[in-house]
């Protein structure tokens, strides 16, 4: 094993992974953005990247980063152009020339830069274990970050872009996500306009907002006193209660949905938002109670005792001392519950038949039909996603705390 521990191996791995990854990512991105059917020559890109890595390794370390980068980039560009006979993406240079030029430069710079980053301080010959592994980790981290980012990002990109295209255009060339900005806003946002005009999406947004906000309010109203009692008051079976709360939210929704469906059908609560407003809080109260009681326990009891001594009632203590101190926790819980209610699908799907009271997930589900074009469904998905994403980005700190505290559920 230790015979393999050389700088040459690192250069080989670096060239291999950056050449392949760089060409695939940049080639595909070029295709998606330009709409041209590029055929990324991955094999030749790897050879070019290997040459670049070799040049980088051969350049003395004393030359400084910028000079090594320059040599390496020049080598990659030269090899790439020669090997592909002047067609770096399998297309003549005249196809989308500006974008192709940018893509080529990006590819060359990315691979050269990554090689230099990995190979700085790496000798040609044998290496010690520590620097060898450190260089290996640099490769892995770089590759991992790019792969993860693409893996997470690609579906969202496809969601947004599909909503701007038409089914016919996508069937003709599924890779063409280029947006023609010259077509005007009303044509670009055609799917969205359709959804709001013909499919009642404004009502669905309103319904979703009402249901989610009421769920948050009801949940907090019930969970706050409950959490306070579990955290502060002494009563028999307190620990039993605290633990069974955890067990409750292990109960799968699918087991509850049939009996609730049957009973709600008979008492005519099924096809109503009231029905949802009974079920949603019931599923979120245990989580909220569990999260809040953990936080309440962490608050100093002395302040509350002082309040009691000064003549406040329990309600007064909770209202004037405990709650103001737990605003961050309340925000986290509220956001987490809001997210659950906003995203909830199963009960909305089973309960709601009347389009006038559809929530957004139920409304998007109704777009899943072979008679309706794909882009409508994707536009619906975007409409359902954007509000919760905005809230998430705006209040990320609280949201992350809420997720972390309640994340055992999902």
């Amino acid at each position, binding site marked *: 094993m230790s015979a393999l521990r050389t700088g040459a191996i690192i250069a080989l791995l670096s060239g291999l992974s950056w050449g392949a990854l760089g060409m695939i990512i940049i080639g595909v991105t070029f295709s998606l953005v330009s709409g041209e059917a590029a055929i990324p020559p991955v094999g030749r890109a790897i050879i070019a990247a290997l040459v670049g890595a070799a040049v980088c390794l051969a350049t003395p370390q004393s030359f400084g980063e910028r000079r090594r980068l320059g040599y390496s980039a020049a080598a990659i560009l030269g090899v790439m152009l020669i090997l592909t006979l002047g067609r770096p993406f399998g297309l003549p240079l005249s196809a989308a020339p500006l974008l192709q030029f940018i893509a080529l430069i990006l590819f060359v710079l990315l691979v050269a830069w990554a090689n230099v980053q990995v190979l700085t301080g790496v000798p040609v010959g044998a290496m010690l274990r520590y620097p060898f592994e450190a260089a290996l980790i640099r490769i892995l981290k770089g590759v991992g970050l790019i792969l993860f980012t693409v893996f997470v990002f690609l579906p969202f990109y496809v969601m947004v872009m599909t909503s701007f295209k038409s089914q016919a255009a996508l069937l003709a*060339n599924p890779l063409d996500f280029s947006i023609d900005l010259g077509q005007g806003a009303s044509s670009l946002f055609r799917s969205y306009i359709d959804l709001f005009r013909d499919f009642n999406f404004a009502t669905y947004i309103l319904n979703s907002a009402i249901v989610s906000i009421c769920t948050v309010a009801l949940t907090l109203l019930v969970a706050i006193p409950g959490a306070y009692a579990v955290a502060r*008051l002494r009563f028999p079976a307190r620990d039993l209660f605290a633990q069974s709360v955890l067990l409750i939210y292990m109960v799968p929704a699918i087991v509850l949905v049939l009996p609730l469906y049957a009973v709600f059908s008979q008492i005519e609560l099924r096809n109503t938002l009231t029905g949802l407003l009974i079920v949603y809080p019931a599923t979120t109260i245990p989580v909220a109670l569990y999260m809040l009681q953990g936080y309440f326990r962490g608050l100093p009891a002395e302040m509350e005792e002082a309040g009691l001594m000064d003549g406040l009632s329990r309600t007064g203590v909770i209202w004037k001392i405990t709650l103001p101190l737990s605003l961050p926790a309340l925000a986290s819980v509220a956001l987490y519950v809001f997210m659950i209610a906003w995203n909830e699908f199963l009960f909305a799907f089973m309960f709601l038949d009347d389009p006038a009271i559809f929530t957004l997930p139920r409304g*998007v589900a109704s777009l899943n039909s072979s008679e309706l074009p794909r882009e409508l469904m994707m536009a619906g998905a975007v409409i359902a996603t954007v509000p919760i994403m905005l809230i998430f980005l705006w209040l990320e700190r609280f949201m992350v705390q809420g997720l972390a505290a309640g994340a055992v559920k999902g």
Partner: protein
Amino acid sequence: MSTDSQELDAVRAGSLSEAKGPPKGAGPLQRREARLAYAMLAPTFLIVCLIVLLPLVANFWISVKPVQLGDLRPPETTVSERVRANAVQAGDTFEIRYTIRNSSPRMALSDVSFSDAVPADDVRLAIQDDRCTLGEGVLSCVLGDLEPSARERISIEATAERDIEDVEALLEGSDPNATGSGGNVLTDFSFTFDNFRRVFDATEFWNVMWVSLAYTVFGTAGALILGLFAALLLNEAFKGRAFLRGLFLFPYVAPVIAVAYTWVTLLDPNSGTLNAILLQMRAIETPINFLGQRYAEFSLLGVPISFPVALTTVIAFEAWRYFPLSFLFILARMQSIGTDMYEAAEMDGASPFQQFRFLSLPQLAAILAILFLLRFIWTFNKFDDIFLLTGGAAGTRTLTVNVYEQAIGLSNIGAGAAVAVVVFAVLLTFALIFFKFSPKEEG
């Protein structure tokens, strides 16, 4: 004297016994505190009982009852009235025919009766049917029991007292009032084990079971491993880390229906981006139907292998959607490990991989174990994801999807509830195993 001293003794005895030690049982203050606690917990308790525990029990009840989806609408008596005449002259006789029907195909009705207003000044009724009587301008008939889907006809001969232009409109203008009480299939005492027999007899039951297990195990492991990698990537500070951390949480925060449909679009064999990319890269020759193909047959070193395509895709989705949770937890744990340990390891010459293997991993073992258990149960419970991606087709039907398939797809609520009972039983088994093997001191 005697009574006084007795009282005194009693008081003394009481105060003595109090002085012996701390009071046993709850004092009034404590009792008041407990009462307050119960009052504050009462709403939670009530809602959880009504919406979680009661349905759980009801599910067992439904699972042994012959309930179809259609039975949820209670049986009703419907009465229709026909008059076969238009313009009549005084003295003409014609027939009024009532048809009484039980709307339910499965439930009998009892105490069936109806009444209908008859304009006594305009028509005279000759009642031969002994089930019917004529009161003040009101015809009422009592029919007793009505079998499922049964129809009864009652015809009554009427004589016009005057000339009437449109006798049909006159008589049919008043809608008959029908009564009749049907049993409720949910609350009666008819039981059956057919539901369970059906569920277990089906040859696919074990198939469904295995799919559930594979989905749960690999989905949980996939999400955990991806989460671990993501946390390792973002453990050290660099420019753009906060942005990437936010981005990595996207799959979990977005509504399941939005991301599931996006994957369906992305993986579509005809217009999907992924297939197009793979074709373009010459990685595949024909598009892969990621969500619709049960098995891909190929041979590896001469061994024929059938690879479950759709199931793997669904598991990949599960890992994609839920890795953010493990990522968040593992990252938090990593950030809380002190740096001095690593400094000491550096001094001793431990390489990066050794540091990970012998320092980080043991520190993360506890959180990984807890995450695995919780995610395992939640993945097993998952319904939405598979339902939205494949609807349970192409070898991806898990137990939870089967609940829906039986109850709504095949309109047999009882059978669905029986599958739900199986889900619950499996879950309980997991929980018991986990509690048995989990360390006792963990909170």
